[in-house]
Structures are given as structure tokens and as C-alpha cells.
């Protein structure tokens, strides 16, 4: 299983909308990191992640999200994650990352 990243810029809300589909682990985390670097270079705006199709994420993937948030926070921008699966929500809870990302739904 691989990772598919679909990016769109929402002009009305002035934020990125990213669909993550598949799995983020040590194999695919590099792909996610590159995608984030690219979009933040393009526009340093908040990123809203639709995690409906995200089956799995591990510490390397969370590390990529933390890295991206660090860069966005310089401009007071956020990472919003919604449609999160229960198993991933649990991971965000135990690591305390639910306090630094905005989790919706």
C-alpha cells in the first residue's frame, strides 16, 4: 500500500486542502515531507488535511506533520486535521499532538 497526496488551494478560505490516502510510514514519509515543503514554499498558509482515506500513520509521519507545523507557526498558521480514524485519533491523543494540531470531527 502506498500514499496518495491530493493538494488543492482553497482561494475562498485562503488555506490548503490536502487529501491523504493510504499509509504514512518510514517508506512514504519522505514523499509527504517533499509535498509539504513544496506547498509551504508556494504559499505559507494553513493546511487542512482530510484524513478520511488515511489508513495509518506512524511516528515518522507525525514527525513530518510536526516539522510542517513548525514552519507554519512562524506565520501563525495552523494544521487542521479532520475525518480522523479512531486508531489515528488514539495516537494523536497519547502523543499529545491533538493539542498542537487542530482536530475536527
Amino acid at each position, binding site marked *: 500500500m502506498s500514499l496518495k497526496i491530493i493538494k488543492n488551494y482553497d482561494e475562498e478560505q485562503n488555506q490548503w486542502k490536502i487529501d491523504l490516502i493510504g499509509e504514512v510510514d518510514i517508506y512514504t514519509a519522505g514523499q509527504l515531507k517533499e509535498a509539504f515543503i513544496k506547498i509551504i514554499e508556494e504559499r505559507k498558509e494553513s493546511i487542512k488535511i482530510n484524513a478520511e482515506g488515511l489508513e495509518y500513520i506512524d511516528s515518522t509521519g507525525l514527525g513530518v506533520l510536526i516539522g510542517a507545523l513548525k514552519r507554519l507557526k512562524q506565520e501563525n498558521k495552523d494544521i487542521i486535521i479532520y475525518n480522523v480514524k479512531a486508531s489515528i485519533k488514539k495516537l494523536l491523543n497519547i502523543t499529545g499532538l491533538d493539542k*498542537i494540531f487542530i482536530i475536527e470531527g
Partner: protein
Amino acid sequence: MNKTNSDQIQLSIPNKPEYVSVARLTVTAIANRMGFDIEGIEDIKVAIAEACTNAITHGKNENDNFSVNFIMDEEKLTITVCDHGMGCIVNNIKKPDFNHLNQEKEGGLGIFIIRSLMDDVQITSNHGIGTTITMTKYMGDGY
């Protein structure tokens, strides 16, 4: 036949990121067969992936393999992930403090996750010898 003997499965996995998913799928099948519930299976799956990621990150090189042992008892599953790498920091890993984002390094998060999700975790790490992570998940009540 001696009933106290545990059933065992052993894997030898290349130090390559693309094989972590193999360990994940294998443990899913094993835990499912043993009768763990979905939440328990998810916990074990995440924990073994973190241990494998750790082995690959700190492992010797891509041509080396690390080993994963599954020991199946009636009431518990014990997994040992053993690499021959450089060793890593295993002590004093606390819950990460992301309130101070800029000071926080992402390392240690994997070990913290393993400790949170599994019931019993032991890690030994020696420079030049490698790291062994032994983790156990019990059936039933859990968390």
C-alpha cells in the same frame, strides 16, 4: 506433548523501509488469529511498525537484516525486534512536550508510542551490538 510450550514465528527482514508493511501485515494476521479485538490489533500493528522503523533507522546498513520473533501464548503475544545496529537512546524518554515546538525534536516519539500502546516493554541497547525491543500485549481487558 508439552502444553506449556509457546508457538513461535520468526521473521528476518531486510533493513529497508519498504518491508515495514510486511511486519505490520504479518502481525495483523497473527493477532487476528489469536483473537485480539480490533483496537488491540491496531495497537500491536503501530507498536511493531515503530520498533521496525527504529531497527531500520539505527541499523547497520541496507544489506543487513533484523529479526522479529512472535511468541504466542494463550493469553498474550510477545514480540521481539532485534537489530545489529549502533544502538539508540532508550532511557529517559518522556511524553513529548510540543508546547515548545521549536525545542522539540521528533526523535524518541516511536519508543514513547510503543510504551503507551503495549502492556509490557523492555528495551536493551548497546553501542556496537544493537537494540532489542521486547513488547507484550495481553488479551482481554487491556486499556
